[in-house]
C-alpha cells in the first residue's frame, strides 16, 4: 500500500513541476513527463517481483506450457507500452504519430501471438 501512496505523491508532484516547466519550454516538460512515467513504472515493477514468484509457482503447478502463456503476457505489455507512448504523442499534439504507435502496437501483438496460432493449427491438423 505504501508503494501506491508513494507513486501517487510522485505523480502529483511531477504533474505540477511539468506544468511549471511548460511555461518556459514545452519540450522539456514533455521529456520530464516521460522520465516521470518510467520512474513510476519502475517502482511498480519492483513491487511485482513477489507477484511473479507466485505466478511462476502457479504455472508449474498447473502445468501450463510456457509457449501458451508467454504470448499472452507479451501482448499485455505491448498494450501498456503502446498506450503510454501514444498518449505522450497526443500530449505533444501529434495525433498522427499517436495513431501510428497504436497501429504498430496492434501489429506487434498479432506478431507475438503467431506462435499460438501455429500451435492451434497444428492441433487442428492432428484432429483432421
Amino acid at each position, binding site marked *: 500500500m505504501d508503494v501506491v501512496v508513494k507513486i501517487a505523491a510522485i505523480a502529483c508532484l511531477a504533474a505540477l513541476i511539468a506544468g511549471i516547466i511548460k511555461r518556459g519550454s514545452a519540450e522539456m516538460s514533455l521529456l520530464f513527463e516521460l522520465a516521470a512515467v518510467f520512474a513510476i513504472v519502475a517502482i511498480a515493477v519492483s513491487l511485482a517481483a513477489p507477484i511473479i514468484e507466485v505466478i511462476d509457482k502457479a504455472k508449474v503447478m498447473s502445468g501450463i506450457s510456457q509457449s501458451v502463456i508467454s504470448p499472452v503476457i507479451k*501482448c499485455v505489455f505491448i498494450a501498456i507500452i503502446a498506450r503510454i507512448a501514444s498518449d505522450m504523442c497526443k500530449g505533444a499534439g501529434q495525433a498522427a504519430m499517436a495513431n501510428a504507435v497504436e497501429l504498430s502496437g496492434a501489429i506487434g501483438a498479432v506478431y507475438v*501471438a503467431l506462435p499460438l496460432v501455429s500451435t492451434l493449427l497444428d492441433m487442428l491438423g492432428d484432429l483432421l
Partner: protein
Amino acid sequence: MRWIRFFALLPVLFCFFCTGAFAVSSLEDEIDTKGILDSVPSEAQEVLQDYSPLDTESDGAIGRLLDYIKGKAGEVFAQTIGSVVKILAVVLVCSLVSGMNLFKGGFDYVNLAGCLAIAALAISDVNSVIRMGAKTLEDISVFSKALLPTLATAATAAGATTSAGIKYAATSMFMDVLISAATSVVFPLMYAYTACVLASCAIGDKRLDAAVKLIKKVTVIIITALVSVFTFYLSASGVVAASTDAAASKLVKTAVSALPVVGRTISDAASTIVSGAGIIRSSIGVFGLVAILAICALPILRLAVKYLLFKATASIAEPIAGERVSKLIDGISSVYGMVVGMVGVGAVFMFFSIISLIKVVSG
C-alpha cells in the same frame, strides 16, 4: 444443479420399474446370454460381471455400479480441475489489462491472445469429449443389436409373431438413424460450433455471434426432431396403453428435463411414453436397463463434471477478464452439454425400445 438431480434420479427411476414380480418365462433356451454380455464394452462388463439376463436379483450389479461411479468420480474431477486451473491462469493474465480500457476504438489484441491461448488449451479436451460421445453411442448401438433380437425372438416365442418383428425392426432402425445422425451431422456441427465460438470471441464480430447461436439452435432442433419422431412412432404403434401412471411419468419428466440443452424439450415426450409403458416385469428388461446404465455411467459422469466445472469457470472469468473470454469458456461448456444431450437421448431411445419389446413379451 440439474445434473445431480438427473444422476440421482436415474437409479431411483430404475428401482421404481423393478417392483413387482420378476416372471421368468420359458424364454431361457431362446436367450444367447453370453452373446449379449460380450456385446457390452469392457468397463461395463467389469460392473456387470456375471449378472445374466435371466437373474432375478439385480441388486449385486446395481451395487457394483454405484461403487464404480463413486470410485471414478474423484479421478474425473481431478483431471478436469487440471485443465480448469490452466484456463484460469490465462484468464488472470488477461484481467490485468481488461480493466484499463486501453482499446477504446481499436482492436483488442490482448483478448485475441487470451482466446487463442484458451483454445489451444481446451481443443484437445473438446475433441476427446466428442470422440467419447460418439463411442458411447456406438456402444449403446452394439448392445442394442445384441439384446433386441433376443427380445424379439422371445416375443415371437410368446406368440406375438408379426408385431414383435415389426417393433424390433423399427426400433433398431431408429437407433441406426440416431447413430448416423449423430456421427454425420451433430458431431461435425459441434466442431463447427467450437470454431465459430472461438472466432467470434477472439475477434468480437457480431455476425459471428449470430452464426454461433444459429448452430446451437440447429443442433437442438435436430435432437428434438429425432426424439419427437421416435415418440410419435411408439405412441402410434400402440405400445402406449391408455393407463396413466402419474408417479412414474413425473419421475421421468424430472429426470429427463435435467439433461442440459435438450432436456426441457424432450421431457414432455418422455413422460407421455412412460405413462403408458407400465412396469417392466421381465428380468431381461431389468438386465437391459442395468447394462445401459453401466455403459453410460462413466461417460456421462465425465461429461457432467466437465460441463459443470467449465460453466463455473466462465462465471468466475466474467467479472475479471471481460465478456468475450468468459463467452468462449461458456461456449466450450455448451459443447459438452450438447454431447451429453446426444448420449442421453441414445440411452433414452434404448430404454424405450426395451420397454416396447417387453410389453409385447409380457402381454
